[in-house]
């Protein structure tokens, strides 16, 4: 009986205060992850599953030689992070991102997209 009471007390305590925050996972990207686009995009846009801490989230884009092709600072609003791109030629580019959700869960990832080549 005492065990049952303790377990129920714990569950009540636990489920009574669920907060709406979690790890920020990449939900979708433009250009899409692994995609090939016909014309050079002017920016990369990343949408996450959670809102981001703007000061502690970042993204960079590099070409096949590792040279930065992004320009300006990332623009972060809510769960979306954008960064402008220099004029891209045909080739494959890697997007690396790091995100801190508003409850300080840190996540990171990277993917490539290709310009031209169809």
């Amino acid at each position, binding site marked *: 009986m*005492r*065990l049952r009471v*303790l*377990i129920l*007390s*714990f569950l009540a305590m*636990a489920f009574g*205060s*669920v*907060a709406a*925050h*979690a*790890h920020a*996972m*990449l939900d*979708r*990207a433009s250009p*899409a*992850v*692994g*995609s090939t686009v016909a014309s050079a995009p002017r920016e990369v846009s990343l949408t996450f*599953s*959670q809102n981001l*801490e703007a*000061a*502690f*989230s*970042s993204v*960079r884009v590099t070409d096949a030689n590792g040279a930065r092709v992004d320009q300006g600072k990332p623009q972060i609003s809510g769960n979306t992070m954008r960064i402008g791109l220099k004029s891209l030629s045909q080739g494959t580019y890697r997007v*690396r991102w*790091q995100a*801190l959700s508003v*409850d*300080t*869960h*840190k*996540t*990171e*990832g*990277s*993917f*490539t997209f290709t310009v031209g080549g169809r």
Partner: protein
Amino acid sequence: MLRSSSCWRAFALALLFVALSAAEALAHCFVGARFFPATLATDDPCVADEMSLPTVQWSKTGDVPAATEWDISVELSKRITEDLGISIGDTWSNIHQPGGFTQAGFGNLETTLQYQLLKDGQHELALLLGLVVEWGGTGAIDSGLATPWSTLTPTFYFGKGFGDLPDSFGWLRAFAVTGQIGYQFPTRSFDVDSGSFIPQVLVYGASIQYSMPYLKSEIRDYQLPDFINHLIPIVEMQLSTPVANNFGNSPITIGTINPGVIWAGTYFQVGAEAVFPVNHASGTGVGFLGQLHLYLDDMFPTTIGRPLLGGSSAPPQQLKF
């Protein structure tokens, strides 16, 4: 005995509540871009703030005729510091013999102290050391579902994602493996009641898993339905082999191979596996294993989802590549 074991459990849980009430903390098993889900039959390679509530298994024993067995388990994992964690769990079993005889009750209370040796994000590699203790005399000994002696099992766990393979490997980079190997020592070498030796046992297991979330966010977004993008198909294997002090006992390796799938959401995951015994001593026919697993660090990021000591695992700081 049952009364004293209930008190023991109540005391352990009360201690846990005291600990949880003072908690602060972070993450489940993220290693770089890789997320290792909580596996159902084995353990994932990270300390974490998580709870399996419940894990349910249905199977038929290897007896002739076979008995039907239900096991319902609960496990709570809590980080003490960023790299040190403890788990506490117990299993209630019901074994129904064809003749109508039924054994039911709790097994011994099990605790696991774990230390995170390594989390290498670039190579998606996690290493973990643990000491699993099954506390003798805390379960239903009279029902034959628990032992009066304890067991200690030093265990090594690992997880490796293949995302660091060259891009040319494409969709294969979404694969990952986890595994564990432990050596179980009983605190007694001989069971006077049954007149048999209590063996020392090698306990080992592994999983191979394919992460659809990883495929979508790291390799290629095929615009699949959202439900599919949360799935992690998995095959688990758990085995145990008596290796010492086994005079007069069966030397046979027993275990199961479990193909299944995990759906991983934001705050919880749900897993289901078929359970195939590796031989007749391990069971009869195909069983079932299901689990609801809660990510306490995501559900309660400012309270019980944080380590007890040492503050946040990811204090706000400027992230740099």
